């Protein structure tokens, strides 16, 4: 009896577990579930290491025999300055000044399901840039090829050393951990024809700045062991929390139909909860930032509501927002499946909405990156650009088109406006095309082109084809390509199909003329009303033959020869295409009797003229009066009026006068 009592007692003492397992929202797989992971990992807070055991269950979904696997070892990007990432990533902050600050990942052992040790055959390869010192891609030859449709299992032991936070991953301070790209992660095998592949191939690029990630969907069962007292947040759904005798605890998470798994741990987190429909929203916030709680939660709910309504259903039951401490700001503003990091903000004015913008942006990535899993390395625009577009839309919808980003003391600016300005204000907007792979941006501009230019041309497309059509394009694209890996061409095909269906040939046979310029080209759009002239009509003067064939001189003094003319004025509106992008346009012309005429111009020629012979004078002309073509880098020169309004100039000149006097009188503070 005592023996039994001891056994029962030991059970309670050695581990106390709480089960949180939730019912799955779906009783079927949403994705192909090609790469599935069961990982058990322990965090060593002293050494800043993760010791893990990984069971990879991988299905060969291609018609090819697979004779090798390729893995991403992302943390090796932070191993030394010879990695491709650090050679090109000086913009990611200072390098560590102590041994503890560097990060790396070692695959200690890898075995196939038959127990064959594959470790001796492992080698680092460098498929992207040929840098032989880079260790972010590992090739593992297999003893036995994996047949088409066959599923294989691999046991992998690994140790990951977390760096001081760089490119969102690592540790900072005594006990803040943001753990991403932390385990050996298999690449994507693309069969012939998939994403333009001419033959079956591994798509497993080295880690390069601004190129992020690309992975197959799967199910992740992850057990994370951390010191007790740490609050853990992770992708997916919490299954169980178990306290261990050695002062640690193990939390188990399950994430289904996702492309990655990220987690965080810190004893400082305060947990806030909210709910939108059946989605549990969990905010892990630093105590000093709790003033931002409502900003985080409300903006998340806004984004959930908007994306659900206009794009498609959010299929997961959880969403976690991690608020980093100020010293961990390097991990802020990043997206992972069902988990994002926000922007740490101590006290921030209600009208300054950076926290909301970042939260919305990262949430939208749950659609474009996580569910529609395009290749973030080769076609960054497909996730970052689309996300920027929806960030602008959501922000402008909930917080005002002209005030969504900042609304403080009369100074207002919209998120969409700022996005546009990022592109239109570029010193060289022709630096590269949106479709340029991340590693081909040699002279900068990648963020603006991939994020903001894409967001801007999507907004332009929205205004050209109408927001309802644009929504149909996006809904079709989402439904057709969720839980798959689309390319830019796939999106363009959807756009052409929907626009043709909705508008017929209104925009030509397809919209390739548009995408060729904005996605694959570097053309810049700038149209201008060059001049308006109104000349009093007079009879022709000079030498004319009369009915008898005799020459007769006629000039203005011949009053009797003046005929009444219907048109008193000959008015010319001269338009100019300053940029090299060609877009069909509407031109709005107004006359001095208030009459208005809407003209169209194909926008192709360098100059175009509208001529009117009417009793009225042209007062103003306005190219693209509804501002559909937001890509036009100077909207101010799109219009011209003969009756200028001098009040705004007077107003701003008087403001400048006031500010200038204030600036001068401010010198009184010094003497």
């Amino acid at each position, binding site marked *: 009896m005592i023996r039994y009592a001891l056994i029962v007692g030991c059970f309670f003492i050695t581990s106390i577990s709480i089960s949180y397992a939730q019912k799955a929202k779906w009783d079927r797989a949403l994705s192909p579930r090609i790469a599935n992971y069961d990982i058990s990992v322990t965090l060593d807070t002293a050494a800043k290491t993760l010791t893990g055991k990984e069971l990879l269950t991988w299905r060969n979904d291609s018609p090819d025999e697979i004779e090798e696997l390729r893995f991403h070892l992302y943390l090796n990007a932070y191993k030394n300055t010879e990695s491709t990432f650090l050679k090109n990533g000086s913009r990611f902050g200072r390098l560590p000044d102590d041994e503890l600050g560097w990060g790396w990942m070692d695959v200690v052992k890898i075995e196939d399901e038959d127990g064959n040790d594959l470790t001796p055959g492992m080698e680092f390869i460098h498929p992207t840039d040929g840098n032989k010192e880079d260790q972010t891609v590992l090739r593992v030859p297999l003893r036995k090829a994996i047949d088409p449709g066959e599923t294989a299992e691999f046991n992998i032991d690994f140790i990951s050393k977390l760096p001081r936070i760089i490119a969102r991953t690592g540790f900072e*301070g005594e006990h803040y951990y943001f753990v991403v790209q932390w385990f050996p992660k298999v690449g994507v095998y693309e069969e012939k024809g998939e994403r333009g592949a001419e033959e079956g191939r591994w798509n497993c690029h080295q880690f390069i700045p601004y190129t992020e990630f690309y992975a197959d969907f799967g199910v992740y069962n992850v057990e994370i062991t951390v010191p007790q007292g740490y609050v853990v947040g992770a992708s997916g759904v919490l299954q169980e929390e178990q306290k261990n005798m050695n002062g640690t605890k193990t939390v188990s998470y399950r994430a289904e139909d996702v492309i990655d798994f990220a987690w965080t741990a810190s004893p400082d987190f305060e947990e806030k909860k909210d709910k939108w429909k059946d989605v549990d929203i969990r905010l892990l916030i*630093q105590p*000093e930032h709790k003033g931002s709680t409502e900003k985080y939660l409300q903006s998340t709910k806004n984004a959930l509501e908007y994306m659900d309504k206009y794009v498609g259903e959010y299929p997961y039951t959880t969403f976690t927002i991690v608020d980093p*401490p*100020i*010293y961990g700001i390097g991990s802020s503003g990043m997206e992972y499946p069902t988990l994002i990091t926000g922007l*740490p903000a*101590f*006290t921030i004015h209600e009208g300054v909405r950076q926290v909301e913008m970042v939260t919305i942006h990262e949430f939208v990535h749950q659609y474009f990156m996580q569910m529609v899993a395009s290749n973030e390395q080769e076609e960054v625009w497909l996730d970052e650009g689309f996300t920027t577009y929806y960030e602008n839309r959501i922000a402008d919808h909930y917080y005002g088109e*002209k005030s969504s980003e900042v609304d403080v003391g*009369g*100074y*207002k*600016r*919209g998120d969409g*406006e*700022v996005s*546009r*300005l990022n592109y*239109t*204000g570029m010193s060289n907007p022709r630096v590269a095309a949106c479709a340029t792979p991340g590693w081909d941006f040699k002279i900068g501009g990648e963020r603006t082109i991939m994020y903001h230019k894409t967001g801007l041309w999507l907004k332009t497309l929205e205004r050209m084809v109408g927001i309802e059509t644009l929504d149909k394009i996006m809904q079709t694209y989402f439904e057709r390509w969720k839980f798959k890996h689309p390319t830019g061409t796939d999106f363009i095909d959807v756009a052409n199909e929907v626009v043709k269906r909705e508008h017929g040939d209104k925009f030509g046979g397809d919209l390739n003329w548009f995408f060729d310029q904005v996605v694959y080209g570097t053309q810049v759009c700038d149209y201008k009303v060059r001049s308006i002239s109104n000349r009093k009509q007079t009879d022709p003067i000079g030498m004319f033959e009369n009915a008898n064939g005799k020459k007769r001189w006629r000039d203005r003094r011949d009053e009797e020869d003046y005929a009444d003319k219907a048109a008193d004025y000959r008015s010319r509106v001269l338009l100019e295409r300053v940029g090299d992008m060609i877009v069909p346009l509407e031109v709005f012309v107004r006359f001095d009797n208030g009459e208005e005429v809407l003209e169209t111009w194909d926008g192709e020629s360098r100059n175009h003229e509208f001529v009117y012979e009417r009793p009225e004078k042209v007062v*103003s002309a*306005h190219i693209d009066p509804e501002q559909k073509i937001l890509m036009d*880098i*100077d*909207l*101010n*020169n*799109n*219009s*011209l*009026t*003969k009756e*200028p*309004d*001098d*009040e*705004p*100039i*007077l*107003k*701003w*000149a*008087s403001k*400048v*006068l*006031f500010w*200038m*006097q*204030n*600036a*001068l*009188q401010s*010198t*009184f*503070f*010094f*003497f």
Partner: protein
Amino acid sequence: MNPIIVFFKGISHTFRLFLMWLLLFLLIFVLGLTVAVPFAGVMEESIGNSLEISKLLPAYDHTVWTDFMNAHGDKISGLTSQVRWMIPVFLLAYIFLSGGIVKSFATIHEGFSHQRFMAACTKYFWRFFRLFAWLMLFQGIVAALLYGGAYFIGLGGDFGNLRSESFFSNTGKILLPIHLFLATFIAMVGDYTKVRMVKEDTWFVLREFGRSLGMCLRYFFRTYFVYLLDIALLVGVYALYLFLAPKIGMTGKAAILIMLIVQTLVMFFRLGTRLFAIGSASVMYDGIQRKENPQIVEEISEEERAGITPVPAPIVAKEEQESADLDDEFDEEDQQYNEREHIVDWTPYQDE
């Protein structure tokens, strides 16, 4: 030396120097115009005929403004570089003019004289420039000690050690009021040093600053209270402006012109508050000197008896009349001083 009386006397003395006030304001206004008028020209030439410009009338429009700056920023950059050199040049000019300003307050009972003003500007420029340099040094030392101290003590000299933004908040809550107090106190001592250097006609900037510091510490509550009243008046002027601005709007020509007048008045009175402070310091200084050195009265009386500078009768009469209302609040000692004040003011240029 009732500080309220001193404060109002500072104001009344400034109004008596209205011409100086007006001329100084016109200088600032004209300098402002040298930026505002070309700015209006650039706007008119570049986007004046665009329909988009009307979006700038009801409020700031980020798109119109940034497109304007993108396309025509090079023309604006000429103006911004003009502003960049104009501000330090004006500071130098203000240091130069300060001699005349302080001298005019010191000789308030003789009215404003252009010749005296300009002569004092020239005479005190180098002394005041050195005082300016010392003041900047003191202000810099105070700021460095406060914030540098917090940086090194609180963060160990490395922002990497920052564990929470509450460090900035908590430190700011403590340091900012201290800094504001010390900065305004140093500025006030600077004003008293200017007054002392003019009234005593001394060259030794640091010594006079030390003496003024001692005096301000001895009469801390009176001197600083008057200075605070001047600052409060300045804050009040801006509060009134911020209250009126949204009500007026600037969305039509009439409203723009009204706002232009309001803004001009705000600038005029902002300059006024600076002059009020110097005027008050001048009055307070005289009061303190008289209190601490009653023998000065006798000494001066002897000089006066020697017939060096007879006090003009009309000014005396005017001053007596003006101060009659305020004098009720003076204590007996102050009352006595008021009568002698005209004797103290005898020495406008005899010593030069």
